[in-house]
């Protein structure tokens, strides 16, 4: 990776263009718009040639690390390999060129993908049906909680405004609950990392809408008391929400629907191999058990008796279908609402469905177990140089609590005090060795958390190379912690000054100080 310092604006030359459009042969232009609604000054966009654009973004790409560049042991993110056939399928013109409001008859192939992927996800999770509106995991959480609230509201059960969230939960869980108008009640973890059922019991009453859980939890531990938890929550009339961020290790082993969960989301960009795109697009379909299907958001795809697929419950009219009056006829009046503009991130669904078809019922069952194998292998191999606070068998990921020997030394008459290396320093030094850093300082239960998730798609050789680097770093920490504290040394940039970035925000090209 090499440093490249340009911004596209800095390549701009007045009058240079990179577009290719026909001349305007119409006798009119937007200059004919009334003055009062017309823009007076044109936007100051870059003026560059096509080749300028191609070179600039190619250079930018070379400062980026992706799954195709190297190993990403990023806990809770499931950075598995993204098969290339999926990209080709998502880019097929007949899927890319369809307008979202086209009449059902003209998009039967597209609608079949919705229908079949729904069936496949239901089979894998033990849920009854999914909605594909949510565009990301957090969006799925919010949608799932809306369904939960809608269920209670429709039954006239208006007092259920509180939700239980474990202290080990992803930050999105409490944030999604708050956006959904729920009060968050935290349940504590025991020293072994699992939910403390005794702490849970007194929190349960008829004001509880439900509980949000990840299982395995963010420490990679299976919540083995899930049956008791499910019974307790159901007994007071609450529902169980399953955060699908950690679904991967359960493929082929157990299903959220069988464990007593009522609502769940899946991150297609984690468990089902779609690329992360530098932070999206994702897709967060939400599934529910049979009793909750009337509350699933609309629109939805159904298979009619005539063998044709149809979209139900759209807000916007489509050709030959009038909107508004249709909702009641289509039995959508209990639905939680609409959660995105059209029908979710279809191109992501295509990729996930291709992945499922490639693995098939045989191979998908191995994905979870191999992910757990890789994670436990790393945990057991590195525990002599990194603190392992919870030694039990993990699933897809686990957490270290920093270095065993961080190199810190008290001051002696001969030498001054030496400060030790932190988890941040370990993470930064890993970048020098050509690996992405693990998730750090999460979960919040440990001060120096290093959360590692190798996924099933990495070979033993890759994992061994990663562990060699982790070992070397542990030795470096012992011998020369200062060297780690200034890492990384070989990346396009060194550590950025984040404090100044937040104190004096420069958030666009024109905010830059003129020199």
């Amino acid at each position: 990776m090499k440093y490249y310092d340009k911004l596209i604006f800095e390549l701009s030359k007045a009058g240079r263009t990179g577009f290719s459009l026909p001349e305007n042969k119409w006798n009119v232009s937007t200059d004919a718009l009334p003055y009062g609604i017309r823009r007076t000054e044109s936007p100051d966009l870059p003026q560059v040639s096509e080749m300028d654009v191609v070179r600039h973004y190619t250079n930018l790409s070379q400062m980026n690390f992706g799954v195709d560049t190297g190993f990403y042991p990023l806990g809770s993110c499931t950075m598995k390999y993204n098969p290339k056939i999926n990209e080709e399928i998502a880019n097929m013109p007949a899927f890319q060129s369809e307008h979202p409001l086209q009449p059902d008859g003209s998009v039967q192939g597209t609608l079949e993908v919705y229908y079949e992927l729904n069936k496949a996800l239901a089979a894998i999770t033990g849920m009854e049906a999914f909605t594909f509106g949510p565009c990301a995991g957090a969006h799925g959480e919010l949608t799932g909680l809306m369904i939960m609230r809608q269920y209670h509201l429709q039954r006239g059960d208006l007092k259920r405004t509180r939700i239980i969230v474990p202290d080990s939960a992803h930050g999105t869980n409490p944030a999604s609950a708050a956006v959904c108008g729920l009060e968050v009640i935290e349940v504590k973890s025991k020293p072994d990392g699992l939910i403390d059922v005794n702490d849970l019991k007194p929190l349960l009453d008829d004001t509880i809408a439900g509980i949000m859980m990840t299982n395995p939890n963010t420490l990679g531990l299976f919540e083995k008391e899930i049956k008791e938890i499910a019974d307790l929550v159901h007994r007071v009339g609450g529902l169980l929400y399953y955060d699908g961020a950690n679904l991967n290790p359960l493929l082929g082993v157990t299903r959220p629907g069988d464990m007593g969960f009522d609502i769940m989301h899946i991150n297609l960009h984690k468990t089902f191999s779609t690329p992360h795109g530098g932070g999206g697009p994702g897709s967060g379909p939400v599934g529910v058990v049979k009793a909750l299907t009337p509350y699933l958001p609309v629109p939805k795809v159904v298979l009619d008796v005539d063998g044709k697929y149809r979209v139900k419950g759209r807000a916007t009219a489509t050709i030959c279908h009038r909107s508004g009056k249709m909702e009641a006829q289509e039995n959508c009046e209990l639905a939680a609402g609409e959660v995105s503009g059209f029908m979710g991130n279809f191109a992501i669904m295509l990729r996930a469905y291709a992945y499922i078809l490639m693995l098939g019922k045989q191979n998908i069952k191995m994905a979870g177990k191999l992910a757990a194998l890789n994670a436990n292998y790393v945990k057991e191999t590195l525990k002599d140089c990194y603190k392992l606070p919870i030694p039990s068998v993990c699933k897809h990921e686990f957490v270290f609590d920093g270095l065993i020997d961080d190199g810190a030394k008290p001051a002696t008459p001969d030498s001054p005090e030496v400060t030790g290396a932190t988890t941040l320093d370990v993470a930064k030094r890993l970048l020098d060795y050509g690996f992405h850093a693990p998730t750090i300082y999460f979960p919040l239960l440990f001060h120096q958390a290093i959360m590692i998730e190798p996924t099933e798609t990495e070979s033993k050789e890759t994992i061994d190379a990663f562990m060699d680097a982790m070992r070397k770093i542990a030795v470096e920490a012992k011998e020369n912690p200062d060297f780690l504290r200034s890492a990384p040394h070989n990346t396009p940039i060194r550590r950025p000054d984040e404090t100044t970035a937040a104190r004096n925000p420069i958030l666009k090209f024109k905010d830059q100080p003129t020199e």
Partner: protein
Amino acid sequence: MLDRIGAKTLDDLYSDVPADFIFRGEYDLPDAKGEQEVRDYFEALSKKNTSLKVFVGAGAYDHYTPSVIPYITSRSEFLTAYTPYQAEISQGTLRYVFEYQSMMCELTGLDISNASLYDGATAAAEAMKMAIACAKHKTRVLLSNTLLPNVLKVIETYAKYHGVELGFIDVNKGQTCIVSLKNELAKGDVAGIIVPGINKYGIVEDFAGFAEAVHTEGGVMIEYCDPSTLAVIKTPKEWDADIAVGDGQSLGIPLCFGGPYVGFMTCKKEFVRKMPGRIVGETKDSEGKRCFVLTLQAREQHIRREKATSNICSNESLLALFVTVYLSLMGPEGMKRVNDLSYGGAHYLHDELLKTGKFAEAFERPFLNEFTLKCNVPVNELQQKLLDAGFFAALEIEENYVSFCVTEKRTKEEIDSLVKVIKEA
């Protein structure tokens, strides 16, 4: 590897899963397929779709995607990267997001842009929550009834569960009615309003007096925009709007049956601390080199948990790259040309349709690339004829009112053959 772990079989790794829950059946899924079989399967599926000439907008616009865009956005360094938490090896993503933010500020005229949101409709819902967060103790947000129906629905869904009371502003002659706005404002408790720059009828709205009326009552003005058209129509800044949102799909993103698209949001700088989503900022590294980082993270869910301004984390970063590359290629001149071509085609179609005698003017209001006519013949029959001829056109916005959209992709020949079908219908 199992030896190292001290396990005999892979199943030993799951000894803590209660036996009742172990899935012993067979997944109800097809058998594993080879790559060629999968390709054949999807090719067969894709043939069940019919390619239509698109003359409909309604929130998704059939603009041309230059070849450079898929070429750049499919580079695996961009495509397979995670969110840029490790700035040292993510300068590619961070730089293009910074450029994206700069360009969205140029188009809308406002000070601050975030790194993207899911889509236009959810961006509008986020803006509604932002209005509530900015205006302490006010609980109402007003929505114009000229907003697209799907955008209205998503805002209503978020409002219902977030506990926001919605009011609605009436339509007058195809445009948001300022008298109705003032009546609603007079009822008090208004945190903000959401109005569309170009509305569901295709009309370019005139917001003279809107911002002043809202600001006097202590609310914020949120404009829902089609960013492509902001190159030629009055900007949110020029209307003195506080927040602009919308869908970036019109900036080089294929239709793709509705997603992935990209929501955008820009605002005046006094609202930055309430803005949802990621924001990229410029700084220097320890050697003084210019570099870029995710910044102002104190607003976000992973720090603030239930007190965060929003639950959003992943957004639509790769789609922001589509937009950035598109706007770089187009520049100010290309953006003007796209709008001129769409304007010219739409006005030609509008006049030709009126000449058929089957339509009447619905509103005497300026439009750009989309317009609505009153249909004097049975709508369903007309739509079916168009469909049979390979056109997706005449979307029924309200009973007997149909809309058409023309982008730069539609040629005069295509428009003429559409008109011919209608004449003969």
